[in-house]
């Protein structure tokens, strides 16, 4: 992360826009069923390892790659587009 990126990040946190974007993303992921899909993935992993006590780190390591791949392109595109436009308008001010 460059100095510029850090500043942009800090600004997003300060204005609350980072939280707003996160909320938008969270909503989109719930709407499109991603959240439920990931929940099912987690259940499967827990079931497979029923004998040994599975930890969060193990679960995250197993599920994250598949969960990332399941994020629909439309959601990624929308977020990217909105963040980009937002940062550009901020820059002008």
């Amino acid at each position, binding site marked *: *992360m460059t100095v510029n990126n*850090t500043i942009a*990040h*800090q*600004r997003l*946190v*300060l*204005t*609350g*826009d980072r*939280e*707003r*974007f996160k*909320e*938008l993303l*969270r*909503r989109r992921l*719930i*709407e499109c*069923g991603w959240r439920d899909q990931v929940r099912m993935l987690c259940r499967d992993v827990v079931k497979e390892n029923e004998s040994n006590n599975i*930890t*969060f*780190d193990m679960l995250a390591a197993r599920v994250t790659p598949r969960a990332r791949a399941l994020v629909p392109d439309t959601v990624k595109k929308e977020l990217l*587009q*909105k963040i980009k*436009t*937002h940062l550009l*308008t901020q820059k002008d001010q």
Partner: protein
Amino acid sequence: MNDNGCIHLNNFKAAKGTNPYKIVHAFFVACTSFEARRYKATSCLCFTCGMPGPRMHSCLHCIYFACYAGHIQDHSKTKKHFLYVDLSYGNIYCAQCQDYIYDRELTEIGVTHKLKEAKSLGISVPFMPWLPNPNEAMALRRLRKRRLISPHTTIGLRGLQNLGSTCFMNCIVQTLIHTPLLRDYFLGEKHKCKAQGSGKCLVCEVSKLFQEFYSGAKTPLTLHRLLHLIWTHARHLAGYEQQDAHEFFIATLDVLHRHCMNGVDENGEKKENGRCNCIIDQIFTGGLQSDVVCTSCHGVSTTIDPFWDISLDVAGPGSLAACLERFTRAEHLGSGAKIKCSNCRAYRESTKQLTLETLPIVASFHLKRFEHSSQIDRKINAFVSFPAELDMTPFMSSHRRAVDVGADNNNAPEGVCEDNRYSLFAVVNHVGSLDAGHYTAYVRQMKGSWFKCDDHMITRASLREVLDSEGYLLFYHKTVLEYECENS
């Protein structure tokens, strides 16, 4: 998973209380104020490597910030500070148990902070998953029978016997049964009736009908009780001849709306603004704004009327969007239709524009395919295409105003809360001629899963088939439902 934390966290709480967690959470997880956001923006960097991630944590013992890529673990080991808080979600990691642990008291603190944060940012209340209360949890443990909903399930689908030209009723019933929010209401047994068991309440009858549809039985149902109830309460529909499905739909909503008054608690109550708050009005009622502008003084007179559906002319436009565009276009009322302007105190020529002030959760469109005039009764078979997903924003009063003053629709995240997207979930079709016709319905049973309901016959259909059908009544459901803030 249990929410009693672990022995290490309980010891920590006994020694230092919940304050350390409260402070870390309010400032660095869910910022409850602008000041908190300033702290988070400037100081939420790994003390070891200076990066803002990945997965920042804060030591609960000494508020040391570090990333999960090894630095928080290093700090924990060298200082023997075993508890640290994840700054994205607020979960607590116990290095002695080697996993995240959950504590009811701290979880509740987190939830209150999340609500405060949403308020401070002006965004709607974040999604909270349903958790059974003690009674519900007990009921779930007692009733072991579960019904698994697989992608190919046919649950919720049942044919309806034709009782002699009652296909108009059958297709409206199929539509109502497959209205997502109405289904949730009835399967949640939300209608608690004062007139229970009297056999006179249509809402109770529909409630029973939902149980029949979702019982898992496959034989077609006979709706004689329902038909009789509607005949009793909407006399103009009584008789054995074919009726108009649209008229039946509106009459059914009206009887349901009136019978909701039988309900105990929330059903009969009115909101402060005097508007009915029954489930029918909550789902189907929108507000239609009519602006009449005087051409000489440019004074505007605005009225807002409730509506349950929108009737659209089909001659001319080839798509639903075009029909709506024409419906909401400013129309010049000529010299033959002068209206008294309250400003000029005289009859003036004016323009009139209809826009949607508030949108209902279910948007119902009636394509006016039947033309009744003194000379001729005819059916208009004009092709009108309609989409599976519809954005209603362009037809809203607020949007039209913004267009008028030339404001550009910016992409700022503040605007994300206004979401006016709708998804098609039912289409009623009329086939045949005016006097010897037949009604069928397409209903969406689950996302992407469509069925054709032709009285007692239910067959699988493709979305293409639905979209290629002629369309008489089109039903759209709001894609995303907002959560209402309880204390607002």
